[in-house]
């Protein structure tokens, strides 16, 4: 969560572009990663990420703080965007080959190609999971979000998330063997 997020959100709801800009800066990489893992292509991930934040900005006047983190709202928008994307792109997308451009340049240089290859293998495996498993893995293991936040984003109980998390990791390991 962003420092002073509550007040930043209030400002953004009130129409302050700079406040929404701060939210964008903080959450955009997270949403991009989430979407990229699901669609597998950088360009499409960029388009969808852009759509998510555009939609968020245009609808933020209706956002109400119900005690849920802002990220939960963004993830909901992102999930819907991906669903719509698959509805209108019914052809199976081929698994994209390893693309170092997925990574921030300094990280790519540090990690080395072996590591990048390994990460990409896992990414492709995640893409083969059920959508809900993908979501939980990304939010819990990549973004380190607390179970409560994940539960709120996915409209599930915390207990359900714990169970899904366990099953998702088990399934992922099976695919990777």
């Amino acid at each position, binding site marked *: 969560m962003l420092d002073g997020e509550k007040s930043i959100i209030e400002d953004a709801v009130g*129409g302050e572009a700079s406040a929404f800009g701060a939210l964008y800066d903080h959450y955009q990489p997270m949403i991009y990663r989430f979407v990229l893992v699901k669609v597998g292509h950088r360009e499409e991930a960029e388009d969808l990420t852009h759509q998510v934040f555009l939609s968020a900005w245009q609808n933020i006047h209706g956002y109400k703080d119900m005690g849920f983190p802002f990220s939960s709202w963004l993830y909901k928008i992102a999930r819907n965007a991906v669903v719509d994307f698959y509805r209108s792109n019914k052809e199976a997308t081929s698994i994209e080959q390893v693309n170092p451009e997925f990574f921030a340049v300094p990280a790519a240089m540090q990690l080395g190609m072996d590591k990048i290859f390994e990460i990409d293998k896992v990414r492709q495996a995640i893409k083969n999971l059920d959508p809900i498993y993908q979501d939980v893995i990304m939010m819990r293991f990549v973004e380190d979000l607390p179970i409560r936040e994940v539960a709120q984003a996915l409209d599930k109980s915390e207990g359900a998330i714990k169970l899904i998390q366990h099953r998702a990791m088990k399934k*992922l390991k099976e695919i990777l063997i």
Partner: protein
Amino acid sequence: MELEKILKEFKNIEPRAEFSKISRATILATTRTPKKTWAQILWPSLRFSSGALITGFLIVIIVGAFSTGINSRVPLASLDPITLKAEAEAIDIQIQLTALGYDNPLQVINDTSTPSGVSIKKVAKIIPTEIKTEEGKETTVIETEPVITIEEALEVLVK
């Protein structure tokens, strides 16, 4: 676990800086909610002022048309002189009306029609012009009956 460590590395996946910059700027430049156009803001006042109040406070520079072919990076749409001029003139009119409101608050209220088209402008009959000549020149004299305000009428009754 090894898998969990690899998943942590996913955090190194980031969007391209150029994409982020353009996406952010484009989104923030988008109108968030339908905003009134300058015409909608000013229409009630425009019906009153209709050309009488543009006093030239703002020196409107009519910029000539730009050439579009030379440099495609030149931002033309956002600096379209016709739109800029219209917006600037609308502000100019509003400045005059605000000054009017400062001096004569009731003017702001009374100068536009009510929805029913009825106004309560407190105006007595205005006598049409007489034309007089003065040393061979035509002059125009406008005479009116004095207009009595509510306050003035009450003051007469107080006596």
